[in-house]
């Protein structure tokens, strides 16, 4: 199977380049990550992140034939040859398919992705009704692979100021949580032309999310709550 892979080693290469590979696959190679592991066995200078190999850890996010996705849950049979692999767009490349996620995680941390409450911890767990818990479905499943944020032009232009779809999805996850008591502060934190309103709902994030989540809908709900409190 033919591959064209982005290669860049800042220590030896003046510029990034695309390297072609033609690799014989085994019948057991089902997912793109299997093929990448085979390529790495043949050329161990190729660098990539991977860990759980089943779409849970979010390490092997990359740009596959022009669309961001996880190599481990992308079926080889669905890919057109030559398979073009590039690092996630918009983030600094450390080496080959490995990008520097610092900016991405900075935005994630800026929304305080943890429960904020003044209440004394109860004897057992903090309870929610099944209905209250339902609001977290489709929001809590995010694995922070960065496929969505790096597919978002608004994040490309202002990665330092725009929270990005992944961060905003997490922000809504805690706004929607009935056990959290910092809702007003969270909305204050986001009411900013850059942090939230760079989103123009083009839905690239929804298109690429390997977990099938919908950050655009979460962002819409945050805007709804802002309207409710100020109109």
């Amino acid at each position, binding site marked *: 199977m033919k591959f064209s892979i982005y290669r860049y080693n800042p220590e030896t290469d003046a510029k990034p380049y695309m390297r072609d590979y033609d690799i014989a696959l085994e019948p057991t190679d089902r997912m793109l990550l299997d093929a990448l592991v085979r390529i790495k066995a043949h050329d161990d200078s190729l660098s990539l992140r991977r860990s759980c190999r089943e779409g849970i850890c979010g390490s092997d996010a990359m740009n596959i034939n022009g669309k961001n996705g996880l190599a481990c849950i992308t079926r080889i049979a669905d890919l057109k040859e030559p398979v073009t692999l590039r690092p996630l767009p918009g983030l600094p490349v450390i080496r080959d398919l490995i990008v520097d996620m610092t900016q991405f995680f900075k935005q994630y941390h800026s929304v305080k992705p943890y429960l904020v409450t003044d209440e004394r911890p109860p004897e057992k767990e903090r309870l929610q009704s099944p209905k209250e818990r339902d609001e977290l479905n489709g929001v809590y499943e995010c694995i922070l692979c960065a496929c969505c944020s790096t597919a978002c032009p608004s994040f490309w232009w*202002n990665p330092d100021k725009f929270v990005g779809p992944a961060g905003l999805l997490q922000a809504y996850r805690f706004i929607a949580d009935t056990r959290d008591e910092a809702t007003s502060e969270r909305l*204050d934190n986001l009411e*900013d*032309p*850059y*942090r939230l*309103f*760079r989103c123009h709902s083009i839905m690239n994030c929804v298109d690429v999310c390997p977990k099938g989540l919908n950050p655009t809908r979460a962002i819409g709900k945050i805007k709804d709550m802002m309207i409710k409190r100020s109109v």
Partner: protein
Amino acid sequence: MVKRIIVGAHYGLRGWLVQRISAVVMAVYTILLIAILFSQPNLDYATWAGVFEKQWIRLATLLFLLSLLLHAWVGMRDILMDYINHTGARLTLEILTVLALTLYALWSLEILWGAG
């Protein structure tokens, strides 16, 4: 100067809302105007001028044009925020945009109610 990234301007909701509401106003006006023009027996200059003789059409048109200008302001500011990183350059372009749009607003009044 501090190099830290500073955010938290505590505005943005109104602009976003204005863009949506103005879009609805423009859509309604567009449908209305098309309906009026197509319901005329023959569409020549005299008919056109006659339609705009009516005061309520002029007011509706003014509402449409003001919506258009507000819509354009939010849109232009979005474009400048996305692509112009230098704060001074962005402020200058934003001021020029506001001045141009204000001029268009005055010009709209002149067209709708001016002599001739």
